């Protein structure tokens, strides 16, 4: 068994609350197991801080298997860390080298206000979904599951888009703090499936409007979102969103 432990210096963002100034704090952690994940490293730090009578670092994490979308931070300038298609909780210390200094800061966007340290408020995403990220079907009103056939490749593409965990890395990575990948993924999923068709125009119009209300930036087609997305969601979904919105704006019979 090789390279068992390393020493890491963390420069981490500390901010006591939403309206106070934050700053970086530096801590050195020694003898860390290289198989440790980033949240586990922060646990080590927090235990050290607790023993010193200091306030531990607040950071969101829950499932620790990369699916819930709860964790997230910018590590050395890259949202969700330097590994491809990886959430923070699946970033391991073996991806870093001995005596490396790692800078960890929260996702930054006007639409994602900081609550404390690395914890941010992503409720803007929920409000966007409330605007139309659903199919209006009451429980019990559904026809048999096989009534509407769905071509396999379309189901697969819809699944590619639906894999979004709503972690917000796309917004964090976007130079303009845009939420287009998130919105594009949901619009795509439901536009690709026949079940989503009846509402596709309403959905595109009202979800884009909700996105604009939240104060996200505008897409610059820079593909940074795609590069950091833990689920590998393609910007093709953004193109589809652009198409859906254009179509809805120019050709929809109903107004929203």
């Amino acid at each position, binding site marked *: 068994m090789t390279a068992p432990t390393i020493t890491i210096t963390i*420069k981490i*963002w500390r901010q006591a609350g939403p309206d106070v100034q934050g700053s*970086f704090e530096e801590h050195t952690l020694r003898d860390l197991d290289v198989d440790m994940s980033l949240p586990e490293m922060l646990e080590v730090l927090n235990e050290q801080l607790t023993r010193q009578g200091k306030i531990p670092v607040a950071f969101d994490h829950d499932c620790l298997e990369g699916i819930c979308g709860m964790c997230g931070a*910018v590590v*050395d*300038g*890259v*949202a969700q860390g330097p590994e491809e298609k990886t959430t923070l909780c699946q970033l391991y210390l073996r991806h870093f080298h001995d005596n490396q200094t790692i*800078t960890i*800061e929260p996702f*930054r*966007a*006007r*639409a994602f206000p900081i609550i404390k340290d690395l914890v941010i408020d992503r409720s803007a995403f929920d409000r966007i979904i409330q605007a139309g990220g659903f199919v209006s079907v009451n429980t019990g009103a559904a026809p048999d599951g096989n009534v509407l056939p769905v071509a396999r490749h379309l189901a697969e593409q819809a699944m590619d888009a639906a894999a979004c965990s709503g972690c917000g890395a796309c917004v964090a*990575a976007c*130079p*303009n*703090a*845009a939420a287009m990948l998130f919105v594009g993924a949901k619009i795509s999923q439901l536009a690709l499936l026949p079940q989503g068709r009846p509402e596709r125009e309403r959905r595109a119009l009202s979800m*884009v*409007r909700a*996105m*604009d209300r939240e*104060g*996200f*930036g*505008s*897409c*610059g*087609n*820079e*593909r*940074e*979102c*795609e*590069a*950091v997305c833990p689920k590998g969601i393609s*910007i*093709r979904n*953004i*193109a*589809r*969103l*652009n*198409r*859906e*919105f*254009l179509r809805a*704006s*120019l050709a929809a019979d109903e*107004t929203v």
Partner: protein
Amino acid sequence: MSWFTQTVTSSLGKKYIMALTGLLLGGFLLVHAAGNATILLGRTDFLSYARRLHSLGLPVTIAEITLLLLFCIHAVTGLVLFYRNHQARPSPYAVSRRAGGRTWGSATMAWTGIAILCFIVLHLTNFYFADHRRSLADIVGGILDNPLYSALYCAGLLALTLHISHGFWSMFQSLGLNHPKYDGLIGTCRWILCGSIVGVFLTIVILLLIKRNYLA
């Protein structure tokens, strides 16, 4: 709000505006480059092209006004987007690194846009608002044999290259024209377009700098 204002004031609407005006401005550049390519044929051909163009009269005026409008819309919308995007992230990251999507072209879009704006002011001062009692060939020759101007024009062309390198692809993406089968074609067209426009202009600038009396 009418559906139209709702559309154009939305974030996506602004992107459509950028894409469409960008497309038309690109088209103009292509025509402009084709016309100016007559410089390479020599003074006589260039002047005859210019004379014929201006003899069209009203259509040229209309085209000029349209072009000005397109340009203003593109620039103003671009600046509004630039400002809004800046607002969307009020506090910047301490460390910022590309994750793999950003290119030089995309990262500098706003700056190359502003550079092109400045360049066009210079360009119009040099030629459009010049003293037209002299022949156009003399005006062109007179400006571009000055190394300072040559350098400025080269800088302008560099900005243009960067701007188009991202803008062309971005235009298709913004309009939702994107398909795995045609992505390669779009990528190739970007470089052909960029190469032909910038190639023509750059050749003219270099030619006139080296052969000072080429248009005499």
